[in-house]
């Protein structure tokens, strides 16, 4: 759905979707596959999000974690952190949720064609990046090196471990995973994800980097990428803020002048670098 088409329908109207599949990911998070109630399709771009409504409980912005080339369903990966996400987590397969979207500016995957691609993710930040990874791997021949650097708190909190293993098994993709705290049986890196940047083997002069994770991780991650020689204009970040409308009318997601919902959530870092340094902006 392009912006012009969205403008025709009332963007505040919700569209019912049926939960076709629920898969537990981590102790506190799960992935849902949604299909349009009564048929139809759903197109989106990597990095975009939906406003997800559950009957009576409310609505929250959730990034889309599925494959952008598959318009038959929407995939969301959700952490149970608040009243609405708890309520969504209590739903079962066959039940319905409401969807408004997709909203927001995407990861510029196509614009990055021709360069090396570095994806730096922390914790659940891998979810909004997964559609970009799918798209990049589907267009693997259009990139130089593709590097995925992922950090989680502990081995048991690694999101999408099977896919990470699968991607790591490819000869054309470098995947490095680290944990803050090791557990028995862990043989991989230990330490913060930013440490993986050094020696990742990309050409900093011709690299696009996508970064998503907790804000503190993004700050240090960007620092590491800059130290490695990537220009600020080649680094993209995805932000999270309170949102009530998703279309720039409710005001909640303002981050300085930008509205995270419509000017973001993906921002080119050089355009928001100053905002990153202001507390409680």
């Amino acid at each position, binding site marked *: 759905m392009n*912006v012009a088409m*969205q*403008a025709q329908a*009332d*963007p*505040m*109207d*919700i569209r*019912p979707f*049926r939960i076709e599949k629920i898969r537990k990911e981590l102790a506190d998070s799960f992935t849902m596959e949604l299909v349009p*109630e009564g048929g139809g399709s759903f197109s989106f771009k990597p990095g975009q999000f939906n406003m997800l*409504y559950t*009957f*009576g*409980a*409310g*609505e929250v912005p959730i990034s889309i974690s599925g494959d952008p080339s598959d318009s038959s369903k929407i995939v969301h990966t959700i*952490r149970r*952190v*608040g009243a609405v*996400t708890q309520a969504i987590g209590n739903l079962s397969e*066959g*039940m*319905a949720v*409401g969807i408004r979207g997709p909203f927001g500016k995407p990861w510029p995957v196509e614009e990055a064609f021709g360069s090396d691609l570095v994806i730096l993710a922390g914790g659940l930040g891998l979810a909004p990046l997964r559609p970009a990874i799918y798209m990049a791997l589907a267009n693997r021949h259009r990139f130089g090196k593709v590097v995925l650097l992922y950090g989680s708190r502990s081995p048991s909190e690694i999101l999408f471990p099977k896919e990470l293993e699968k991607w790591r098994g490819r000869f054309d993709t470098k995947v490095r995973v680290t944990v803050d705290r090791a557990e028995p049986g862990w043989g991989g890196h230990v330490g913060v994800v930013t440490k993986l940047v050094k020696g990742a083997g990309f050409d900093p002069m011709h690299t696009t980097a996508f970064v998503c994770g907790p804000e503190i991780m993004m700050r240090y991650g960007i620092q590491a990428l800059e130290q490695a020689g990537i220009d600020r204009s080649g680094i993209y970040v995805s932000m*999270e*803020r*309170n949102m*009530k*409308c998703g*279309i*720039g*009318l*409710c*005001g*909640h997601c*303002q981050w*300085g*002048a930008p*509205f995270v919902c*419509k000017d973001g959530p993906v921002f080119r870092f050089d355009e928001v670098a100053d905002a990153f340094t*202001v*507390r*409680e*902006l």
Partner: protein
Amino acid sequence: MANSQAVIDRRDLGTLFTLLTEEGYQVIGPRAEDGAILYAPVSGPDDLPRGMGDEEEGGHYRLSNRNDAQLFGHTKAVQGLKAHLYPARQKLWSAEKAGHGFRVVKDSTPQPRYAFIGVRACELAAMFIQDKVFEGGPYTDKGYAERRKNSFIAVVTCNHAGNACFCASQKTGPDVSEGFDLKLAEILDGSRHVFLAEAGSEKGRAVLERLPKQAAEEGDKNAAAAQIDAAAKGQKRAMIAGVADLLAANLESPHWEDVAKRCMSCGNCTMVCPTCFCSTVEDTTDLSGLKAERSRKWDSCFSIDYSYIHGGSVRNTGASRYRQWMTHKLSHWVKQFGHSGCVGCGRCIIWCPVGIDITAEAKAIGKGA
């Protein structure tokens, strides 16, 4: 449009109300109620605040007696017209459980058609600003757009300034040059009580055509111009020039902490501001749990909830919340919508319980920088 100017006698003003009502408008005008001037339904000139004035200062508002027969002798209503164009609470839709899912029923209440009488320059400027917010981007608020398109606007120009007014420095008043259907200037000279009227649109011309009137005299035109002049010159406050850039460069000014010591984070300023547009949605169910509803209601950037994301609020301190309000209004708004978000009406000053003055705070930040 000088040739469409005419003079309407005070005794014929009732005809305007009758005509607008006949046209299907609900007429909204200033009324003295609960010790304040409010915009509310008015059925004729008798409902207007005859002989009433208003005293205003930081944290102070009182009605006063003018001891004259002016119908629009006050400076401005407590609130502009945003409550009519963008209601404080509006039902968006309801939903009913159906099988494993639910069915959504859109609220299809028709939007009202308002005729606003007594609109001030700052209030009209606020409408232009909200037009940009609600209709100027990729997404439109359909309810606002419909109400706005359906409305009839009869401006009454100011003949004096209130103590909190600073529209002249914001270049939003006190004169009005466009965007109205009718523009009236109230002229009371001894026993002569008339309105100099000018149409600003086809809708306005059609109404003016049907009103009992006389040709405008040079003296009336001069009197109206003198009123505007007095309203501009009488302004005691002014917004400093270059405030947008000043604030953008001072996000870390220690002065935000200073304001925070006085600011109670009550949000009054955001409620009375004619351009503040923030809203939240409220989802509820009935006791059976079978019916749900969604409403949209005004929200304020001064609440902790406003910036809440999992793990806590982004803006925990009063300083950051005041900074958000003031920098958005005067600085970020320019980047977002090409215009300042402040019309200089001074309502945020009047209705601040501790009298925080946005013009004074801007100056203080300028000095500290």
